[in-house]
């Protein structure tokens, strides 16, 4: 609807997930926070479309707020 593709698109999800995990190997919490922020900016530039990034951000935010509404804790 908003251009954000959310269907299954990853050939090897385990490998992709492992790439994310490996990137954080040995980093402090502060360094990991920085890594995630830089990762998002690099991916956002790769996408190159503020509308898609905003749609993904809105989707992620809705998911977090949904947890809050259920009385859950996203950070648990």
């Amino acid at each position, binding site marked *: 609807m908003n251009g954000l593709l959310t269907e299954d698109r990853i050939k090897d999800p385990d490998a992709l997930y492992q790439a994310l995990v490996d990137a954080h190997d040995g980093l402090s919490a502060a360094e990991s926070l*920085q890594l995630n922020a830089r990762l*998002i*900016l*690099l991916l956002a*530039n790769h996408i190159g479309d503020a509308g898609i990034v905003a749609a993904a951000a809105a989707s992620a935010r809705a998911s977090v707020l949904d947890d809050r509404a259920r009385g859950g804790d996203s950070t648990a």
Partner: protein
Amino acid sequence: MPKAYQHPTFAFTPPPELTGAAGKRRPVLVVGAGPVGLTLALDLARHGVPVIVLDDDATTSHGSRLICMSKRTLEIFDRLGAGAPFRAKGVVWNTGRLFFREAEVYAFDLLPEPGHGWPAFMNLQQYYLEDFLIQAAAALPNLEIRWNNAVTDVALTATGATLGIETPAGAYRLTADYVVACDGARSTVRRALDLPFVGRMFEDRFLITDIAMDADFPSERWFWFEPPFHDGQSALLHKQPDGVWRIDLQLDGDADPEAAVRPEAVRPRIERMLGKDAVFEIEWISLYTFRCRRLEQFRHGRIFFAGDSAHQVSPFGARGGNGGVQDADNLAWKLAAVLGGAAPEALLDSYDAERIPAADENILNSTRSTDFMTPKSAAIRAFRDAALALARDHGFARRMVNSGRLSVPAVLDGSPLNTPDRDAFAGGLPPGHAAVDAPVLAADGQDDWLLRSLGQDFVLLLYDARSDIGPLQGVRQVSVIPAGGAPAPGCIVDRDGLLQARYAMTPGAGYLFRPDQHVAARALWPDAAWAAAARDRALGKDAIG
């Protein structure tokens, strides 16, 4: 130590209304002799409208305040006959450097393009700006500045407004067809009408300091994110004339504002920045609270708001003062046209239609800059720091780093005064754009500038036309001879071909400019009927949309 500016004291003259003369109705009263009020008054007077400026003080600005003048502002001052002292005194700068913690992240260049009469930016203290405009005003017999005249109350009627004014010699009242409030963020007129601001206030503050010192720093804009000398906050260093340097230091939201502005508190902060051995004098200290807000409307019947009384933005984009000067530029010719009977009063509604979107653009940019400089959470700070870190190696991240998006002329592209293009131009300036300068030869063969040739009239600029399009009331026609041609009476020569390129001119094409030098209309083959209709539309006679 360089010689500092000496503030003049302007004489208070008891107004004639207090010495027996009947208070006669005035066409326009301007409240506030700051940059916006003075610009407006000069523009009105040069259009033949008698104007009185009321100011509650008797000197120029305390402190440098607005220091960064944009090209558009300088072009407007030049049109108002006040350009020469700005050119002589201002500090031109083109390079900005951005630092993150200890290291320079990158430098940007404003990439000055040749063939413009004025540079992209010039730094000059606001007291000089006001001084120069006051000098220009003194040459105009129909412009009167009344110092020590404080407006105390406002009465608005359907056909005008009456101001209550307090002076050292007593109080009196003045009635005018129109009043323009250029009296700043704490506008008395705004408070008298009880008009609210809409927008955002931020908790963040900047400590703003002018210091005088002999330093050989280049004429560049230096901005630091989290410098080691300032506890992880932002800082700015900018050069002004007379060896005066602007230093802005961001303060914590919970810093005690009264303690922060004491010289004994400011001096050590600057010593940490410049080194213990730096020799400097503190000239001025102020505190700036970030705010991005505006009035819902800038016109309230016969009262108009311009500059900070109408809208306020955070610093670092040079959008406050330069935006206010553009307000004045937009309003003056319209008031003159309505008062002179050339336009219906409906033209004045276009002030809101044109300047509110311009203010919103400034507020949007200013809000984004403020959000970048003052991250509100650890995750948001992480994005900011990530952009700064990636900026060392990646151009895309450099473009995200936001230490202020510098003022550019408003494009009035949604204005009801514009005549939409009927012809396809291959580029150039669509209706709503401010005119772009180009070097030309005047009729006498002397070097001149396009903007100077346009002046303050409606102008139909015809490129390589065999003839003008016949007499057209209220419109001056200027023919452009292509590069290489010989100067001729009533014509200008496109000296370097830049006019042709910047306006995408083809033989016979024409642009209609408004008195504020914005493009009202353009056509490949203009004729008299088209030009008359475009002129009428720009005068608000065709207020559709």
